[in-house]
């Protein structure tokens, strides 16, 4: 096997092996565990960077292993997978640092970090899957590896949340499975191809294709938290903060959104899907989810819950961009995959810090917190501005392209959705910022869950939050640069439209 065959496998293995090793590590060996974690995260990051460099030079990376006749396990790297792989491995690196700091001294850490690594394995697997079957394998693996993280605390509340999470995702997985098998029965191999591979099949199959499309989208929509399949997401935020951060930014909801992108672009082909009339229902569903999530977020006092509903809304931007036919909106949707990840992970990092250092968990308890924790709150502010779409933070670039794309494709009402959503975003983020910076503290801060430290919170927690906030600022400011996520998204979108 050459290096090009091996590299995708190594990227997956770097966290898989780490996870397995950590499982067998005795609980008290905290330093060894942290070292292993960081080694795994660094190794993956390096491998992914090598891969990026290779793809830039035109190398092809593909690993193929035949399981049953007509059924291959394929890991393949294209530009789209590069987008998610890079995002996952960068954010995993920072989340690992954060999680080490966050869970210091808590029980069952070997179990936690073991599943944590498996979860990222699944996430990069989803990103690099070269056909629908491999995608499904990792998609289900993701469900299994995140469940123990959601119920990690073992309280009655978290077990309830876990049960709900499981029912939603297992049912979604079952629907997805039916769609995948059916499609495999009809057309055989399901290797992802730019501009799709279903157009060539006779028109007699189009009816089945339509049903399959909806099966696939429903199956994926559960993880992508499309209304009305989003019920698990706000509940699942009982998980520890690093898990929420990972769930909302890279792992679960992204797997769903990414799957929708794959199905529309690389299975059906965006133009073929449009010809079959499949995109309009998707546009309507995502538009509704965008508004619905934002409206629900307005009334939540629990900070993490408000962020969760915000995720429901924001993730649908990705699917919206995909479902509106046209180059520009595709760019907007794809780039939001990265931008939303960066901003949302920052927000969850900050929410975790507030809870950990000051026992602040509600929006109403955040009055005056800006003066007590200026750095954290600054990071939070950047990310919140990004979510609203204030330039030059990353979120602006996504919304700009989405809006422009809607105009181009002759669906101006989408602009209305975007505007409404922006107003609502402002409606639920600005009060937080106002309370944090401009209002007086009302009651005493709660006790800290960690040892006293030099800065406002332990460096292990603060550093990742600041870095991701800066990243979301930088990707927005340098969106025009050749190496930015936007440029990558443009390159992907250009390939998906038949010239």
């Amino acid at each position, binding site marked *: 096997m050459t290096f090009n065959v091996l590299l995708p496998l190594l990227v997956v293995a770097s966290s898989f092996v780490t996870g397995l090793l950590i499982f067998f590590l005795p609980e008290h060996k905290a330093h060894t565990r942290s070292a292993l974690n960081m080694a795994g995260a660094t190794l993956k990051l390096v491998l992914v960077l090598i891969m990026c460099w290779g793809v830039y030079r035109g190398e092809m990376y593909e690993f193929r292993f*035949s*399981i*049953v*006749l007509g*059924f291959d*396990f394929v890991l393949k790297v294209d530009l789209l997978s590069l987008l998610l792989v890079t995002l996952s491995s960068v954010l995993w690196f920072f989340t690992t640092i954060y999680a080490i700091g966050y869970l210091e001294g808590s029980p069952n850490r070997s*179990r936690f970090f073991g599943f944590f690594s498996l979860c990222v394995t699944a996430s990069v697997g989803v990103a690099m899957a070269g056909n629908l079957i491999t995608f*499904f*394998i990792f998609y*289900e*693996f993701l469900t*299994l590896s995140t*469940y*123990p993280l959601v*119920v990690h605390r*073992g309280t009655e509340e978290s*077990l309830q949340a*876990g*049960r709900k999470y*499981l029912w939603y995702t*297992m*049912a979604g*997985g*079952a*629907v997805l*499975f*039916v769609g995948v*098998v*059916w499609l*495999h*029965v009809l057309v055989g191999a399901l290797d992802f191809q730019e501009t799709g591979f279903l157009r060539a099949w006779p028109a007699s199959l189009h009816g089945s294709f339509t049903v399959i499309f909806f099966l696939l989208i429903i199956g994926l929509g559960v993880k992508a938290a499309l209304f009305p399949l989003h019920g698990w997401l706000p509940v699942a935020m009982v998980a520890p903060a690093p898990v929420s951060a990972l769930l909302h930014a890279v792992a679960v909801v992204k797997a769903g959104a990414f799957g929708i992108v794959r199905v529309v672009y690389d299975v059906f082909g965006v133009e073929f899907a449009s010809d079959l009339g499949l995109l309009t229902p998707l546009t309507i569903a995502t538009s509704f989810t965008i508004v619905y999530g934002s409206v629900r977020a307005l009334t939540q006092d629990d900070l993490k819950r408000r962020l969760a509903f915000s995720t429901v809304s924001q993730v649908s931007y990705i699917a919206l961009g995909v479902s509106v036919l046209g180059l520009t909106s595709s760019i907007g949707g794809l780039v939001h995959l990265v931008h939303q990840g960066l901003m949302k992970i920052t927000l969850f990092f900050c929410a975790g810090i507030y809870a950990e250092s000051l026992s602040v968990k509600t929006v109403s308890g955040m009055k005056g917190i800006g003066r007590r924790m200026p750095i954290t709150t600054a990071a939070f502010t950047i990310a919140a501005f990004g979510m609203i779409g204030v330039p030059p933070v990353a979120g602006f670039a996504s919304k700009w392209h989405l809006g422009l794309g809607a105009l181009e494709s002759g669906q101006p009402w989408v602009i209305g959705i975007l505007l409404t959503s922006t107003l609502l975003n402002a409606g639920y983020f600005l009060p937080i910022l106002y309370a944090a910076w401009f209002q007086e503290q009302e009651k005493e801060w709660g006790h800290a869950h960690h040892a006293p430290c030099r800065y406002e919170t332990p460096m292990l927690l603060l550093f990742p939050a600041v870095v991701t906030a800066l990243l979301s600022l930088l990707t927005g400011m340098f969106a025009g640069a050749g190496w930015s996520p936007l440029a990558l998204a443009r390159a992907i979108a250009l390939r998906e439209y038949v010239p």
Partner: protein
Amino acid sequence: MDTIFPWIILLPLTGAIATFLVPRAWVIRTGMVTALLTSCMVFAAAYFLHQNGPVHYAVGSWAAPLGIRLYLDGLACVMLLLTAVSGIFISVYACEYFKDKTSGVLKREGIMFWPLWLFLWGAMNALYVSGDLFNMYVLLELLGLSAVGLVALAGTRTVLIAGMRYLIAAMLGSMSYLLGVAFLYAMHSALDTRMMGALIEPGMGAAIAFALMTIGLLLKTALFPLHFWLPPAHAGSSAPVSAILSALVVKGSFYLLLRLWFDVFHNVVTIPVGQFLGALGALAVLWGSIQAIRQQRLKMLVAYSTVAQLGYLFAVFPVTAGAPPTDGVLGQWVIESGKGTLYHALAHAFSKASIFLAAGIMVHALGTDQLSRMRGMAERLPLTTFAMALAGVSLMGLPPSGGFIGKWLMMHAVLGSGQWWWAVVIMTGSLLTAGYMFMMLRQAFQPCEDPSLFKPVPKTMEWAALILAFISIGIGIRAADVLDLLMIGSPFLIEPIAAVGGAL
């Protein structure tokens, strides 16, 4: 090949007698040596099959119709391998299980376990290679009797009642089967399966024989609503016995059903019959799973899960019955569904054996199998909990396990042949399976309240359960090899056998 063929059957039978005769101190050693040798023979047979293709063997050099024909093809070989591989690990587990906790001496149960188990193993091996309808009856009877004996080993009142019910069900089943054979023999004066397949013609007599034999085997396979005897028997017996019954014994009678369906009755069966069997299977899946969710005891839960999982196997019949032998396109789905069913049987056998062994470990450590008492198992018995979780992944049919391959192939077959309603049942069943598996694991992952409740467990027992669970996952990853072996001799090919003499 001719030299090793008889030993697949003779070795375990000889071992059974030997373990019965040797002094107590030698029982385990004799038993284990027999188990190992038998497995080696099976592996050797598999190797020969792989090299030279299917084998016919005339016992005592008497050809059919006078003599008894043994026949080894891919399907039989995979079943032999299944028995050998899970048999080895169950045997290893049983070595420790039947020892007295304090003195380490083999208990009375253990002394009786070995002869019965080896006897059962021999009967099962013979059943898989048998090509003669009456011979099959004798073996079914042997299998049933030794299984009932194993159930009765535990010796408590409830188990004896369960064993009695099992005995009656098994007897009724064999009788019904025998009656069917008598009908066929009266009509065609033949007992060899291949000959019968060529001679039989659709008609009243064939239909009655088919119905009698099928009902008999359904009773033994515990298909809903004939499953009443299974849960108490499987849940009440000692752990290695539960594993043997759930993983292997019920597969024996199902195997026979499959063989008869393809080799003998292929032009007697009709579409409604296939749909009917499929519907019973679907009800078994739903009913068994719902009952499993309602259980308070781990072993009962697992036993009902067996009822449900056996239901999946019957999805093969509607696909097969709908396909005329000449239709190449539909024929493809028949083969697919045969593969899927067999794969599901394999995956279920390994994972169910693993879970029953794990449940035995729990009883060993805690003295009970109440689900509510499982709290803290993940901390105190991590290997066992891991085994349960892995086996659960396979039962749920999640990738990349063997259960996933089985489900994939079955879904392929039912969707491909246009019978989408079975797909709905299969997926609902998977979700329900996830429901009870997570119900179980959820308890295991709760924090441990009192570590002193957990008594130490021999590590070999834990590893036996874990390795079986790994195998149930592993056969998913190496599915291509298993399927290649399975398809030697094309066991699922429905075609009229033109020249019987040539085939022999």
